[in-house]
């Protein structure tokens, strides 16, 4: 609020014009980045397909055959991705049935892929916000993976250990446990950075491996949190499960989606409407200015890392309490890395993160079907995400590819502060 008043000298109309054009250009590069990454992904799918490679061997005899085989391979894979993530064709057909007096059952079934995509985006929203908050404060949290595992383990522990509680007490308890678990796991690298200078990029990665080893011990058969003969936690009691909305088979859409949206709004408020948020953004934008303005940088680092960890913890918590109802090894499944890509894609803005999370949820959900139908390993999504990060971080590549003009005053985030403090 303070900053806007100080800028009041500039003419308003000019400001507004600049803002709208920067909004448009802010959307162009991310969209083209995703598009380009998907194209490269398509080429990777086609040219690792033995059928396609075989067709290209006979390119000079049958050039159309080679192209057709390539197209076929991509179409099958991305077709499965689309029908598995959105299923718009099926929804359209089911709508027709319904309008002609048929029942709503077909429609409910057709809606499953779309609602599953929304469901899959819930942990992405939380984890993306976690990384975004760090970015805003100039911290690179690549430990979301471990923090969400800690969050999930804490929440599930509370979720199965206290029978007989009503849902309005038990569920908040489990949620808070996950929040605090993640916050603690995130605060440790923050403390290390503030008081010893240990770089968060390495310490958060080490914290990931530490919790992976600890959870291997917790969950192994006979371990403190294992379920009898199985290397997974006991089932969360119904009183701590996040309620689902629909009864259709396979539709797991749950209240966590709204919790995620509310959290995104709260983070937006914190970052852009509160003094604390102003301090965080100043710390990220100009470290020296933040120091000279008298902000307690050390406290802020710890705060940002704890908040970041807590949000990541919520990603795991919501996933465990709503979908799985238990935690096993490999629970986090690369979500920590996804969150970096989507925080960058969303320009570290809560709204951008929500949009990016919806996109990634859709991609991940569709990729599951792509794996089962077209036998494309789900890791293709990881590759696409890495490409998205590169294109977002080096927009010059995208602008060169599509002959775009360089906008004025665009800044890429900077985190490299060497190994000291």
């Amino acid at each position, binding site marked *: 609020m303070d900053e806007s008043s100080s800028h009041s000298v500039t003419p308003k109309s000019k400001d507004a014009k600049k803002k709208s054009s920067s909004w448009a250009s802010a959307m162009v590069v991310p969209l083209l980045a995703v598009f380009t990454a998907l194209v490269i992904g398509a080429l990777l799918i086609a040219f690792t397909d033995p059928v396609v490679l075989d067709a290209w061997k006979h390119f000079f005899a049958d050039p159309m055959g080679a192209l057709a085989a390539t197209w076929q391979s991509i179409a099958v894979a991305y077709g499965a991705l689309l029908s598995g993530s959105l299923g718009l064709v099926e929804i359209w057909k089911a709508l027709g049935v319904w309008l002609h007096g048929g029942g709503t059952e077909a429609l409910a079934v057709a809606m499953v892929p779309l609602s599953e995509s929304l469901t899959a985006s819930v942990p992405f929203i939380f984890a993306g916000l976690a990384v975004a908050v760090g970015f805003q404060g100039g911290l690179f949290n690549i430990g979301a993976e471990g923090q969400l595992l800690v969050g999930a383990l804490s929440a599930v522990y509370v979720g199965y250990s206290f029978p007989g509680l009503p849902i309005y007490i038990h569920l908040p308890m489990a949620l808070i446990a996950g929040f605090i678990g993640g916050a603690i796991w995130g605060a440790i690298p923050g403390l290390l950075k503030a008081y010893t200078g240990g770089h968060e990029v*390495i310490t958060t990665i080490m914290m990931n491996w530490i919790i992976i080893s600890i959870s291997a011990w917790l969950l192994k058969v006979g371990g403190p949190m294992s379920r009898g003969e199985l290397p997974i936690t006991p089932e969360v009691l119904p009183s701590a499960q996040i309620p689902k909305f629909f009864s259709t088979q396979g539709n797991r859409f749950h209240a966590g989606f709204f919790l995620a949206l509310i959290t995104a709004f709260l983070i937006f408020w914190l970052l852009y409407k509160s003094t604390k948020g102003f301090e965080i953004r100043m710390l990220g934008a100009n470290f020296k200015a933040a120091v000279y303005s008298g902000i307690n940088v050390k406290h802020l680092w710890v705060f940002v890392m704890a908040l970041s960890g807590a949000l990541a913890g919520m990603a795991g918590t919501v996933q465990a309490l709503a979908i799985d109802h238990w935690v096993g090894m490999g629970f986090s499944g690369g979500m920590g890395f996804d969150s970096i890509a989507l925080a960058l894609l969303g320009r570290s803005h809560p709204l951008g993160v929500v949009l990016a999370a919806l996109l990634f949820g859709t991609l991940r959900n569709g990729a599951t079907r792509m794996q089962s139908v077209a036998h494309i390993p789900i890791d293709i999504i990881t590759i696409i995400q890495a490409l998205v990060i590169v294109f977002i971080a080096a927009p010059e590549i995208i602008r060169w590819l599509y002959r775009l003009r360089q906008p004025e005053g665009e800044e890429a985030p900077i985190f490299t502060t*060497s190994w000291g403090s």
Partner: protein
Amino acid sequence: MTATTVNTHTDSTAALKKERRRAIAFGVFFLIVAAAILVLFIFNTDSQMVSTLKLNPTTRNKPIHVPDLVLPTQLTLIVLMIITGAIGAYQLGRGFKNAATALGVVFLLFIAAFLVWATRNKAINLLGILSFTVAAATPIAFAGLSGVMCERSGVINIAIEGQMLVGAMIAVLVASVTGSQWFGLGAAIISGAVLGAVLAVLAIRFIVDQIIAGVAINIFGLGITSFISQRYMQPNPELNTGGVFPRIAIPFLSKIPVIGPIFFNQNAIVYILFLTVLVMHFMLWYTQWGLRTQAVGEHPRAADTLGINVFRIRYINVIIGGMIASIGGAYLTIGSVGRFDENITAGKGFIGLAAMIFGQWTPLGTYGASLIFGFSDALQAKLQILGKVQVPIPSEWLLILPYLITIIVLAGVVGRTVPPAADGQPYIKE
């Protein structure tokens, strides 16, 4: 970093105070380690116990026989505790000039105490552990050397993990197809050069934040290796059987008691590491390229003024850095287990960076630090043989050790060692 470079009077006293506080924290930490030796180990022994550490290998290649080390457990532990305590007291009183080395010694003392305690009334082959230490240190050392190579020229290479992963997979793939581990190693090195070049172009040409570029390469490496592993190697297991470089006992050297079996009965990649360490050490301080590299890493503007091509040096170093990292990756597959598994690096690229910081950006120091990580790795692998009675600690907890040491190293040593002044800063020509 900012606090130590300013030289006005008030700031320097503040820096001195900060330095003093760190020194005291170090001393206290060392004393805590000494106390831990007392509480965890000495209290669980009695004066009758004896630890036997065997010093002769069980392999065919026999060096000159030496008597085994038979130690009275309790007395040895007390001596180790006193040494650790003395280091802590000296650190509190006068303070060591080289805190990294002091920390390294304390780590070794603690691990040695742990080993002596775990073998109470038992015998363990110390040579086996130390030989495994050298093996386990190899990928970490390559990662650290890759870091030295890049950061000496002012580019941070966080992408080591990804470069290692790709190198590990390419090595086993090519070795399986061609039947030769040497071809596998060569292909891995080429892949490392490519990924090094990608990092260099992103960091130097496009001035992408070096950490973001590195993380992107890591994610790409994880994605592409998992993708190819699932698409090709799992349906065709014959593509994932690259074999392993055979052990080569070096004549004469391998016959030296204790040292011989530890260092000179390893495979070719380990010997390549020894060579790399020595060559890098020589090159960095005694050749034109090395001195130019250091100039570029410390003050690129001045180097440029003197006619050194900053960009060229950085490109060369980052590409060579990628190649070195990929050799470390290749070691994980065709140097030890012979097959690729998803995410086989398990953070070793990052541990290597910690070894580099611990080793103060020198090749020899980095190798020394890698040996400490390798030792903790070897311990957790070998101690399981002794069983639950001897070591009533779940093996999963021992797995944490290398990661924990990495964090302690970063927390304790960073800020007391000086990275190249231009580390991580892009150079923009005026």
